[in-house]
C-alpha cells in the first residue's frame, strides 16, 4: 500500500552519530545529497573549464553558458557593482538548482525541501545584504525605508510597512523555495500512490498526471533556483544602488 507521502522528507542518520560539543552533527541523507550536489557541480564545472578549445565541447559549452547566464542575470538586475558577488550568486544558483534536480530522481532526498536549509541560506543572504548596505551607505541605508514622493502624513505607515517587508525577506525567500519543493514532491508522491492503489484499471489517469507533474516539477526545480538567485540579486541591488 502507498506509503505516507511525507516519509520522503524524513532525515535519518547515515553511519555513526557524530557529536560536536552538545550538538549532533551526524552525517544524514540530507548531508549526503548536499555533498553529492556540490561534488556534481564541481566535477561538471571543473571538466568544463579544464581546456579551452576554440570550438567548445558539450560540457565546456554547458559551463560557459551557465557562466554567461548567471553573469547576465546579475548584470541585468544589480548592475556592474555586483560583480564581486558573482561567485557567491553563481554557487548559490547552482547549489539550489542541483539540489532541486537531484530531488527529482526517484528515491533521492530533496535538500531544499527542508525549511531549515532554505532558511539558513536566506538568512545568510539577508544578513549579508544588510551588512553590505550599511557598509556602502552607512546610516543612509535606512533611506531604503523612506520611499521618495510619499506624503508626510502617510510616511509613518509606509515606513512601518517597508520595515516589515524588509524583515520578512528571509522568510518569504526561504518559504517560497521550501514550500514549492515540498508541495511538488508531496503531490507527485500522492499521485504515485493513486497509481498503485487504482491498479491496472484506474491507474492510467493518475499515471498521466504523474508524468505531467514530473515535467512541471523539473520546470519548478529550475524556476525556483532561478527565482532564489534573482531575488538575491534584487536584494543586492537595493544594498548596492540605493535609489528610493
Amino acid at each position, binding site marked *: *500500500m*502507498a506509503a*505516507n507521502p*511525507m*516519509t520522503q*522528507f*524524513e*532525515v535519518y*542518520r547515515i553511519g555513526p552519530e557524530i557529536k*560536536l560539543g552538545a*550538538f*549532533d*552533527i*551526524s*552525517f*544524514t541523507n*540530507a*548531508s549526503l545529497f*548536499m*555533498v553529492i*550536489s*556540490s561534488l556534481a*557541480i*564541481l566535477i561538471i*564545472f*571543473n571538466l*568544463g*573549464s*579544464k581546456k*579551452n578549445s*576554440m570550438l567548445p565541447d558539450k560540457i*565546456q559549452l554547458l*559551463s*560557459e553558458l551557465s*557562466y*554567461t547566464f548567471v553573469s547576465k542575470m546579475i548584470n541585468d538586475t544589480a548592475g556592474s557593482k555586483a560583480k564581486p558577488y*558573482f*561567485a557567491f550568486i*553563481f*554557487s548559490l544558483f*547552482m*547549489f539550489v538548482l542541483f539540489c532541486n534536480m537531484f530531488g527529482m530522481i526517484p528515491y533521492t532526498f530533496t*535538500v531544499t*525541501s527542508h*525549511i*531549515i*536549509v532554505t532558511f*539558513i*541560506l536566506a538568512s545568510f543572504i539577508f544578513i549579508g545584504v544588510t551588512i553590505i548596505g550599511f557598509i556602502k551607505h552607512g546610516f543612509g541605508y535606512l533611506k531604503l525605508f523612506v520611499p521618495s514622493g510619499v506624503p508626510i502624513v502617510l510616511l509613518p505607515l509606509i515606513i512601518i510597512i517597508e520595515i516589515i517587508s524588509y524583515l520578512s525577506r528571509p522568510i518569504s525567500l526561504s518559504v517560497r523555495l*521550501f514550500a514549492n519543493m*515540498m508541495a511538488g514532491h508531496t503531490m507527485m508522491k*500522492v499521485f504515485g*500512490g*493513486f497509481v498503485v*492503489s*487504482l*491498479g*491496472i*484499471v*484506474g491507474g492510467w489517469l493518475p499515471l498521466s498526471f504523474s508524468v505531467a507533474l514530473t515535467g512541471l516539477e523539473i520546470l519548478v526545480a529550475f524556476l525556483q533556483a532561478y527565482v532564489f538567485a534573482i531575488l538575491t540579486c534584487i536584494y543586492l541591488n537595493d544594498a548596492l544602488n540605493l535609489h528610493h
Partner: protein
Amino acid sequence: MIKKIFFQSIFFNFFFIKEVFTAETVGMPQLNPEFWISQIFWLTLTFGALYLVLSKIILPKISANLELRKAQIQENIEAAEKQRESSESKLKEYDKIVLKSKLEAKNIFKDARKKILNDINSKKETLDKQINEEIKKAEKEIDVLKKSAPEKINKIAIETSTEIVKKLIGADVNNSSISAIVDDLSKRNGDKYYGN
C-alpha cells in the same frame, strides 16, 4: 474478475485517501528539530567548500577562457576585415587596369582607323587624278577627230557627188567645180551639221 479489481481499487483508493489525511496529522518531518543542527552544519560545510572552490579555482578559469576566446574571435574578425580591405583595394586596382587597357585598345583602334582612312583617301585622290588625265586625253582625241571630220566629209561628199553626176549625165564632171560647191555648202551649213 476485472469488475472485482475495479471495485477493489476504488475501495483501496478511498482507503488511501484516508491514509493521506491521517498522514497530515502526523506532521512534517521538516519541523522536527532533531537534525537541524546537522543540516546547518553540513550545509555550511558543503556550500562553503563549493563557494571556495568555484570562486577561487573554477570560475576564474571559465572567465579567462571566455575572455581569451573573445579576444581570439575579435582578432580573427580584425584580420578578416583587413584582408577584406586589401582584397577590395586589389579589386579596385584590377578595375583600373581593365579600364586603362580598354582605353588603350580604343586608341589603337582609332589610330588604325585613321591610318586606313588616310590611305584610302590618298589612293582615291591619285585614282581621281589618273581618271581625270585619261578623260582629258580622250577629250583631246575626240576634239582632233571632230576637227578633221568636216574635211573628210567634204571629200566623201565630192566623190559621191561626182559619181552620182557621172551616172546621171553619163559624162565626167570637173572635180574642182564640185568641190567648190561642197565647200560653199559646208561653210554655209557647217554649224548646223557639226554642233560646235
